[in-house]
């Protein structure tokens, strides 16, 4: 079983907070990796919020291949941030030679392009980069999106933190939303792409559980969108469904819950929205999930949410104070970073709700 955590704050936070959040839950995961996605960036990225940042781990050849492709597509690099690493001996980490965080100006011809057009360009470029670097395993491209960076590595999360100097808080590498997970894939092959959180076009999702409708989801999603690829983990399906329902279909977030864990027929019957819920259940039957799952997601507007499977077979808890909301598989993680909060305000979400946190840290519970 893995553990997941997420922090949403009014202030910029350093990822050491995420490490702390996850460390106390380490008995519940196997310390086989660390992955995080940061939205709403501060520090060195704060002035570049409107420009896409590439997050990538690769070989030297990989850097060259990627930069050539980006330049050929008309992207101009405007900023580069290289994390200082501590390659101490004895650290449990399978490090890549380079960790690239580069911010680019859009190609000139996109200067007046519609937002949607730019977003599709970024996706296509990421897919091309991924395909290019996949040959001979030259590297892994995690995200290429404005105001978002991703870091994933295989090894002990504490050592990964040490390697990247993440235990030392500073104000260069910060964000207001950080999602993290401390385990490599154990059901399937260990590859970097299989580690949560997963990202696509502004959406982040991470999950704790086992999606037993994985095959159904995969078979359907493969034909839904060119970006739905990989499927190294059964939890990627949650991201793609989120992207499909919220972005492609343009439905409000609450319908994500109706798609993933539809209400039983006898509960649908007689509701005002019976007709719509039945149609959703019918047309999106293959996006339904089953098995034990808790999902944490982040939307392009940096709002955050969590929801569970229909039987609530995996835990999650929300803790908060005035400046921060934390989601975590186990409450001990929240105790680490919010020890003085009012515990009575903690929320243990149930199987039929989405708990959503907006940018003012207002927490809403939407009953399905």
């Amino acid at each position, binding site marked *: 079983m893995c553990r997941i955590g997420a922090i949403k704050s009014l202030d910029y936070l350093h990822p050491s907070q995420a490490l702390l959040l996850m460390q106390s839950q380490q008995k519940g995961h196997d310390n086989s990796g660390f992955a995080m996605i940061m939205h709403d960036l501060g520090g060195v990225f704060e002035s570049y919020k409107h420009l896409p940042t590439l997050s990538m781990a690769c070989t030297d050849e990989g850097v060259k291949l990627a930069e050539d492709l980006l330049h050929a597509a008309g992207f101009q690099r405007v900023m580069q941030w290289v994390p200082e690493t501590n390659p101490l001996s004895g650290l449990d980490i399978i490090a890549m030679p380079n960790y690239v965080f580069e911010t680019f100006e859009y190609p000139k011809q996109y200067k007046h392009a519609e937002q949607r057009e730019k977003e599709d360009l970024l996706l296509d470029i990421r897919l091309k980069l991924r395909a290019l670097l996949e040959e001979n395993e030259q590297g892994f491209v995690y995200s290429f999106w404005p105001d978002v960076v991703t870091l994933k590595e295989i090894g002990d999360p504490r050592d990964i933190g040490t390697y990247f100097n993440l235990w030392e808080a500073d104000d260069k590498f910060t964000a207001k939303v950080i999602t993290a997970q401390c385990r490599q894939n154990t*059901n399937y092959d260990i590859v970097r792409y299989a580690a949560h959180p997963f990202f696509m076009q502004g959406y982040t999702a991470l999950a704790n*559980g*086992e999606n*037993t*409708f*994985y*095959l*159904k989801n995969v*078979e*359907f999603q*493969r*034909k*839904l969108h060119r970006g739905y690829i990989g499927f190294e983990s059964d939890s990627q399906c949650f991201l793609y469904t989120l992207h*499909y329902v919220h972005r*492609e*279909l*343009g*439905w*409000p977030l*609450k*319908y994500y819950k109706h798609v993933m864990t*539809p209400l*039983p*027929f006898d509960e649908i019957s007689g509701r005002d*929205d019976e*007709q*719509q819920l*039945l*149609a*959703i259940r*019918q*047309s*999106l*039957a*293959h996006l*339904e999930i*089953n*098995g*034990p799952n808790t999902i944490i997601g982040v939307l392009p507007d940096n709002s955050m949410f969590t929801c569970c499977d*229909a*039987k609530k*077979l995996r835990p999650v808890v929300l803790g908060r104070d005035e400046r921060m909301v934390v989601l975590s598989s186990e409450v001990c993680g929240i105790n680490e970073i919010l020890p003085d909060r009012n515990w009575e305000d903690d929320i243990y979400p149930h199987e039929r709700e989405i708990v959503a946190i907006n940018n003012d840290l207002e927490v809403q519970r939407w009953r399905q």
Partner: protein
Amino acid sequence: MEAMKVQNVTPNDLYWKVRYDASRCTLCGSCVATCSFRAIEAKVERRRMVFSESEFPEPKQRFSAVPVIMQVRSIKNYCRGCGSCEKVCPNDAIRPERNPDTRHPVVTRCLGGDSIKRGGRKNLEATSRTLDRIRVGRISQMTDPSLDAQRHTFDLLAPFGRILPPKKLPFSLDDLGQLKTDALTPPVRWIYPVIIGDMSIGALSWRMWEAVAMATAYLNEVCGIPVRMCSGEGGVPVRLLKSRYLKYMILQIASGHFGWNRIVKAMPHMVEDPAGILIKIGQGAKPGDGGLLQANKVAEHIQAIRGVPKADLLSPPNHQGLYSIEESVQKMFLSFNAAFKFRVPVAIKVAASATSVSVYNNLVRDPYNIVGGLFLDGIDGGTGAAHEVSLDHTGHPIVSKLRDCYLAATAQGRQGQIPLWAAGGLGKTGDLAADAFKMIALGANGVFTGKLILQMAGCVGNDQGRCNACNTGLCPVGITTQEPALVHRLDPERVAQNIVNYFLAMDQEFKKLMAPIGNSSLPVGRSDALVATDKGVADKLQIQYVC
């Protein structure tokens, strides 16, 4: 002593020999009265007894005439092995015995000059069933928990009707961020994943048909299990057409259009819509052949319901007005959709065939979104009457064909748009829940079953040539006959009770299959839940091979 006449039919030539023990027989006559095939008769045998009354052999003889029961030596009135004689005999004096040396297939054709007809299903059993080589092998252990079949809730419903792809849903958002529907969408009914399928009121006795209808209503109204029953081709009693129970019936139209005159006339008086319309193109048991109701079953009430004289009723092998899929979509589907003002789903039933995927592709790509289901019927399906050569040698197994269609849909991202319903020998071993569940995991939305329903009612026919006389109108248990004396053997209320109980048991068993794989809704297409113990089956169905 007479010379032996080689060509004379003897019990040795027939499928069944009647074993009779005169010493136990009380000559009550029950067996002869019961045998609907007239395959046994009371006769008098001449007996000779040699005896001696002295201390030394001084043989004497005595002749006597003894009344006995004898097997009729005829290819017309021959024993079908139904065992009714054995059932009624108070003394166990008589029973049929299978004759492995039968010459019946040859003798019957030689003497009759006509193809052999019978009911039942394929009687050639060369190999074990595909479904028996598949197990539900992906059990929730540690990575995810199994569910509790008794305690958890399960959603056991399947769609019947055309399902739109998500981007074609006519939704928009209102001011409150709620989705609203801006246009009509095709009707879809969520029903139990086992349809009682399609046996006509001519093929079945009125008591049997009524019993099935009663069971269907009871399952819906008392048990809360939304089972639907398909009428078969041959109409529906007007009283039912005008009743509120019509909502549980799927009306079938086949190439003979039997019964539709009455259905159309009843439409203005209907208080409920039917559950659906099923256009029958073909049937798994006799693919490429139309329905066949022999004259001896066309009783007066059948004549009335169908509007026909007493004659052999043969539905043509195809719908005479249709020449292509495109045309059928435009003409038949549109007219039936329109007839019920687009409130009733319209589906199609075809025999499984090497061409089924092409048929499915054509339907799923039709731009009008009006085909509400593909019912695929495999070679092991049953029938009331067919030519034996069709039953045994034509058709296509259902398992791989259903899978082919599902995978074709998956390759196009169209799975679920036309629900797939499968049949043809499902429940043959008596265990329909397991068969249905495996078919669902392979991609079926649900299954339909006919023969098994008859067996629930007391049908003694089997796939080793027992009985299979549904075509004769002499069904010994009153199920497929219109002969009043035979029909009265059947107690419709007990039949309904059996059907209801079977469905209740099956419902439990579905849950016992869903719980260990940790699923609370039907795992349509979850082929990863299955494993095969046969490499060929595993490869063909694209599931995991285990040994």
